[in-house]
């Protein structure tokens, strides 16, 4: 098992509703795939969004949550058929959400290093363009992200 794999990429997910509906759907998908409690996950996502939006612009958001008892971080991607209003910094709706699900107390610096590299990469216009171009194709998204960040197998 590693932090990021194809099973955690869901493309063209149809959401009727708003950001909270999208977060709920994302929590269900990742909870099921990774054996996480869906309720704890959606609460974590919502709490973080209340602090400040994770929609950082260019149609991309990075909802994150810390989960008690999780063994290692999970990075997952959901793309939406219809853009979701996310109260983003640039006020544009979100088509791609990258979820960062962290163990509550994670002393493992390698995990954090991986996530910080991903965060830095999000400021790279080319990377965002590649994500946008790949948003209907899970394999393509997997390639774009793994080429940018080395995940541990």
């Amino acid at each position, binding site marked *: 098992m590693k932090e990021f794999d194809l099973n955690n990429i869901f493309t063209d997910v149809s959401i009727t509703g708003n950001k909270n509906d999208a977060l709920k759907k994302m929590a269900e998908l990742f909870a099921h795939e990774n054996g996480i409690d869906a309720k704890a996950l959606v609460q974590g996502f919502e709490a973080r969004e209340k602090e400040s939006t994770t929609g*950082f612009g260019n149609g991309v958001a990075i909802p994150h949550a810390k989960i008690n008892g999780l063994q290692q971080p999970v990075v997952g991607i959901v793309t939406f058929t219809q853009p979701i209003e996310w109260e983003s910094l640039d006020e544009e709706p979100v088509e791609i959400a990258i979820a960062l699900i962290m163990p509550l107390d994670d002393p493992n610096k390698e995990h*954090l290093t991986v996530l*910080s590299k991903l965060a*830095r990469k999000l400021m790279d216009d080319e990377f965002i363009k590649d994500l946008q171009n790949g948003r209907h194709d899970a394999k393509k998204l997997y390639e774009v992200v793994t080429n940018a960040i080395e995940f541990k197998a």
Partner: protein
Amino acid sequence: MAKKIVAVTACIAGIAHTYMAAENLKKFAKKEGYDIKVETQGAMGVENRLSQSEIDAADVVIFAVDTNVQEPDRFEGKKTLKVGTSEVVKDGKSAIDQAIALIN
């Protein structure tokens, strides 16, 4: 000589915005031809730590933080722009321009 900027970034969770803000400051400082070094105070602790001589040599300081800066004494007496990480993630150019405006 190029103006020298030093910056500290720190967000609440210390996972994403600390590093996004750091990257965006570097991106726009370089675009405008300024020297910059950014210390991140995130979940991994302090990285790319600014030495006192680097701070002393800087023309201006940017704190892009949603929480307290660790060891703020190091920056005493420096001209400092304080903004939130989201502002810097949203508009890195504006943060750099505002900082430079403090010294021009």
